[in-house]
């Protein structure tokens, strides 16, 4: 909503407040002023000039040389505008003038002709192209005759003004008019409101002799009023009105249309003017449109309607789509002489439906949608009639034809000072509260301990006691509400065990050298079925995506993490180590029948060098075992180390030889590995290692409570063995044989060497383990250890065909 400060001053006395102060008061009161637009900022030295003569430039077809009287002198000005003529009053930027955007006007010569200034278009004076009346769009602006030669053109155009741009919340449609904002200012300042004049003369005839109105669905149209104004002469509206419309962001058209728009802005009441002679009948019938009924709207588009839409008809065909747009054939034009003026109240939902379906939002439809003041319709109609009489020469016929189904009584809200104080935490006296209601022009009466408020039609947002509490609080001032702490029972705050564990996982991974990334949840179709943890029956798809890239919900975190590797690689950042913890979304085979399964997963992507110590010449490329080590540490961190196994994976997007599935007590919970070289090629990245784990499964597992083990008091005995096994034998399997065979005495096993090559036959490899034997209760004898150790060797021989390396 754009509010001209000068216009606002007509209805409420704010002379003692600057524009900035006015804006501040409104904002602090809850009507936010988003921006101030000074209309003439940077313009000076532009005056009204009189074009005494206008002759073709001797050396340029498209230029004219005009003699322009600016009051002090008459000087030549070269002008290229096609509409310049002798006898016009125009805006002249004199030498030394500055125009918006900082353009300076100097005395100059154009093809040998002296030019002492410039005749300006409205656009050159800072008015947006779309607000310039059609006749001046491609040329200079021409003032009406009343403009005084030599006077300030900026003032003449009412540009010495500032427009307040309001950012209105949906509960305040009452401020969608200048008068509404005046009410708000008056309440904030405790001042009066001055309504504009609506008195006009009356022609002898009654409007009832001309037209009749019938409303078929009163719920859609609780009030329809029509007036008739005869002997209209269509022409430009007065300068001041055009100026105000421009300030309000509306393009001037002609006096009839401008007047309906002016009253729309003034009262917030949409009005529509039909040419009664072209209306086609004397019967106005408001009804639902028939299915597939067609009408041509005044933008010359043919619209197909449904019976969800409300139309104004002449008894046969639609002449307007109620509250949205008029029809083409009944439009007011230059030859119109009799105007049928409609002032109605259409149901917000009806207008919203039509506006949405047709795709048109107009100043009128916006106001109907948000709810107009049903008590101000007749006054607005009289105001328009008065202006049509005054500025379009019309004769207003007596009376209004109307169909009125508005509720006869206003809603009441009962409250009390005790309740309001309890809700706000304040200590206001009843009189303070009553005085606030008086400022808001809410009629309130006291009945014992209660205050009963009569809600005016102007404020349909006031429905309940809490709405009154807000009115009291905002007028009293939110700053004056005390600061307290709740008096009730205190409760301990905490994170749930799962939330704590998630924080722990993040902390561990950060400490291990991975940056946390957050990527978008929405992804493209070709990213949405990649690197899945498990079979996904279906994706969750956005019904009307903004783009293909954001059309489906992710089923894996890895595609976007690989995008992250690629993004950084494209910027020469080759060493990337990132993880993300977030949700994936698992849909159903057919379309969704219930909310999708949201699963928390953890994923990581690591590429490039893992460790680089430049001056020491040490470098370590990321490999499988670095990433595996990070995961092993993670499992240890959350108490799962003893329950995790890694087995070779056959995930097709991973390197077949460098990938593993991760099991938690036999259940697959994720995978780890190098991305398949084909995948790396597809993403344009180099060797990259990834992992993805089901966090829900990790969190669901309760680790054993942590109890300490006695520190051994007796010495341990260590035996190192180097084994030769087939190269296909997995070290993990060999280790498992040792653990199983070692019995209770075997305290610890660790692999310390892996060797393949010289001194070994082809197809063989050597694995060296260190076995530590210990009995916490006593000193072990060599014999006991040897017995256990021999069993280990035997089992190794039997189970994995391992021999001791000679």
């Amino acid at each position, binding site marked *: 909503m754009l509010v001209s400060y000068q216009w606002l001053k007509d209805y409420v006395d704010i002379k003692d407040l600057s524009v900035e102060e006015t804006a501040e008061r409104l904002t602090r009161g809850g009507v936010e002023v988003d921006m101030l637009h000074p209309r003439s900022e940077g313009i000076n030295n532009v005056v009204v000039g009189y074009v005494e003569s206008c002759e073709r430039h001797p050396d340029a077809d498209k230029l004219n040389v005009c003699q322009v009287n600016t009051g002090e002198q008459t000087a030549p000005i070269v002008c290229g505008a096609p509409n310049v003529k002798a006898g016009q009053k125009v805006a002249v930027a004199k030498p030394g003038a500055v125009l918006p955007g900082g353009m300076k006007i100097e005395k100059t010569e154009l093809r040998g002709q002296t030019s002492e200034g410039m005749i300006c278009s409205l656009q050159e004076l800072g008015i947006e192209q779309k607000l310039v009346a059609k006749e001046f769009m491609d040329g200079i602006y021409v003032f009406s005759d009343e403009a005084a030669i030599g006077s300030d053109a900026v003032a003449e155009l009412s540009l010495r003004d500032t427009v307040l741009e309001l950012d209105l919340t*949906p509960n305040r449609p009452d401020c969608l008019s200048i008068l509404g904002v005046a009410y708000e200012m008056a309440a904030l300042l405790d001042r009066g409101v001055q309504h504009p004049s609506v008195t006009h003369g009356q022609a002898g005839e009654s409007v009832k002799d001309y037209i009749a109105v019938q409303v078929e669905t009163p719920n859609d149209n609780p009030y329809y009023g029509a007036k008739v104004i005869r002997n209209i002469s269509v022409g430009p509206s007065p300068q001041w009105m055009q100026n105000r419309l421009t300030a309000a962001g509306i393009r001037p058209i002609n006096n009839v249309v401008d007047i309906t728009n002016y009253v729309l802005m003034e009262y917030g009441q949409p009005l529509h003017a039909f040419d009664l002679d072209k209306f086609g009948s004397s019967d106005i019938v408001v009804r639902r449109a028939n299915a597939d009924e067609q009408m041509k709207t005044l933008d010359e588009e043919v619209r197909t309607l449904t019976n969800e839409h409300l139309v104004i008809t002449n008894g046969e065909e639609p002449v307007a789509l109620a509250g949205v747009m008029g029809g083409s054939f009944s439009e007011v034009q230059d030859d119109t002489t009799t105007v049928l003026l409609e002032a109605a109240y259409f149901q917000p939902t009806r207008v*919203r439906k039509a506006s949405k379906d047709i795709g048109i939002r107009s100043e009128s439809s916006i106001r109907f949608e948000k709810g107009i003041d049903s008590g101000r319709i007749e006054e607005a109609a009289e105001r328009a009639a008065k202006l049509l009489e005054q500025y379009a020469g019309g004769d207003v016929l007596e009376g209004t034809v109307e169909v009125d189904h508005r509720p006869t009584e206003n809603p009441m809200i009962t409250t009390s000072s005790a309740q309001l104080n309890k809700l706000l935490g304040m200590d206001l006296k009843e009189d303070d509260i009553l005085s606030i209601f008086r400022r808001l022009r809410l009629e309130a009466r006291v009945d014992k301990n209660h205050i009963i408020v009569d809600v005016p039609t102007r404020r349909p947002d006031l429905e309940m006691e809490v709405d009154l509490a807000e009115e009291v*609080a905002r007028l009293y001032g939110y700053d004056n509400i005390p600061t307290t702490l709740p008096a009730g029972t205190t409760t301990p705050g905490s994170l749930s065990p799962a939330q704590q564990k998630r924080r722990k996982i993040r902390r561990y991974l950060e400490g291990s*050298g991975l940056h946390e990334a957050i990527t978008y*949840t929405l992804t493209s179709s070709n990213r949405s079925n990649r690197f899945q943890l498990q079979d996904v029956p279906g994706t969750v798809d*956005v019904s009307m995506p903004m783009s293909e890239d954001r059309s489906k919900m992710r089923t894996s975190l890895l595609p976007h993490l690989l995008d992250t590797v690629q*993004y*950084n690689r494209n910027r020469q950042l080759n060493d990337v180590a*990132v993880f993300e913890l977030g949700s994936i979304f698992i849909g159903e085979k057919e379309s969704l029948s219930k909310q999708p399964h949201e699963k928390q997963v953890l994923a990581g992507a690591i590429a490039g060098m893992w460790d680089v110590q430049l001056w020491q010449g040490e470098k370590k490329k990321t490999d499988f075992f670095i990433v595996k080590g990070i995961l092993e540490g993670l499992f240890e961190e959350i108490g799962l180390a003893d329950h995790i196994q890694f087995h070779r994976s056959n995930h097709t997007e991973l390197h077949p030889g460098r990938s593993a599935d991760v099991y938690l007590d036999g259940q697959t919970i994720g995978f780890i590995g190098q991305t398949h070289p084909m995948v790396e090629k597809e993403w344009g990245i180099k060797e990259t290692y990834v992992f993805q784990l089901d966090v829900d499964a990790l969190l669901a597992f309760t680790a054993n409570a942590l109890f300490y083990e006695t520190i051994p008091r007796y010495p341990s005995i260590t035996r190192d063995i180097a084994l030769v096994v087939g190269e296909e034998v997995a070290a993990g399997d060999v280790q498992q044989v040792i653990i199983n065979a070692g019995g209770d005495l075997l305290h610890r096993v660790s692999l310390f060497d892996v060797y393949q090559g010289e001194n070994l036959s082809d197809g063989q490899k050597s694995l060296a383990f260190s076995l530590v034997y210990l009995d916490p209760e006593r000193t072990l004898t060599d014999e006991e250890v040897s017995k256990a150790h021999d069993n280990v060797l035997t089992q190794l021989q039997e189970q994995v065909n391992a021999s001791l390396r000679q």
Partner: protein
Amino acid sequence: MIERLKELGDEALQEIKEANTVKALEDVRVKYLGKKGPITEVLRGMGKLSAEERPKVGQKANDVREHIQEKLDEKSAELEKKALEEKLQAESVDVTLPGKEIKRGARHPLTAVVEEIEDIFIGLGFQVTEGPEVETDYYNFEALNLPQEHPARDMQDSFYVTTDMLLRTQTSPVQARTMEKHEGKGPVKIVCPGKVYRRDDDDATHSHQFLQIEGLYVDHNIRMSDLKGILEAFVQKYFGVDRSIRLRPSFFPFTEPSVEVDVSCGICKGEGCRICKHTGWIEVLGAGMVHPHVLEMSGFDPEEYSGFAFGMGVERFAMLKYGIDDIRHFYTNDIRFLDQFKRA
């Protein structure tokens, strides 16, 4: 003979003084104190002396020996110390060379902000509660006093996945769900962090995906002044004790009265600067008293209970805190950006 011993003593001391290595010093010891050394030699000739002189010479010989031994020990310690010093000197490093880098990752700035805010509210007695990102229309809108035709639905154009389900546009549905679980019994004190989605084109200040934290406090006799108290406590913990808050009337369908909460600008201390658009205040939160309809729909009796709710954008808090000027940085994951938050 005493003379001779004195001479030998002096000679030995001189040689000790000149010995510069452990080896040379050992030679001196052998030379003077060894079994074949001159002092032993002298003592051997003692038989020729009178009984009177013998103890004197013997005494002198012992004195000389002890004195030499003493000096030898001193010199030896000195030489060892010197040798150690030389060794240490040789072992010294350039301490200005960079140390071995311990690889550390960084917390995402949004996570850092979420956790900090969670912790402040945990300290104030709140629980952290989460909920689904794909919500039903009922919980995302209707239970929050936004019926089908409500004009405020325009404010948040959303991503629907079916006619009845959408990517949540706010985390408040978690509040409605939690209230239902409480079956009409307070207190409910929760903060709900999470991802939310709106149909916005991504640019420097808009993101179709962002993080929100909303809070709810429902109990008997909760007043608007309590809302002010809790939010002031939060703002001062997060931004600093020297900051103050200002409430402005606003509108949210699920609260009434509704407020926008501004915090005094920390850059200019309220004088006005570019960051606060010359107002001295920065908008950080939306809040209000829970609308009776919302309480009722979630099973709470508005006659008995009242409450307040608040919500904030995590990106906005992170942008203010770290001076970040483009919201897209949070989701681009440029290593040069992430790397800066190791101490966040």
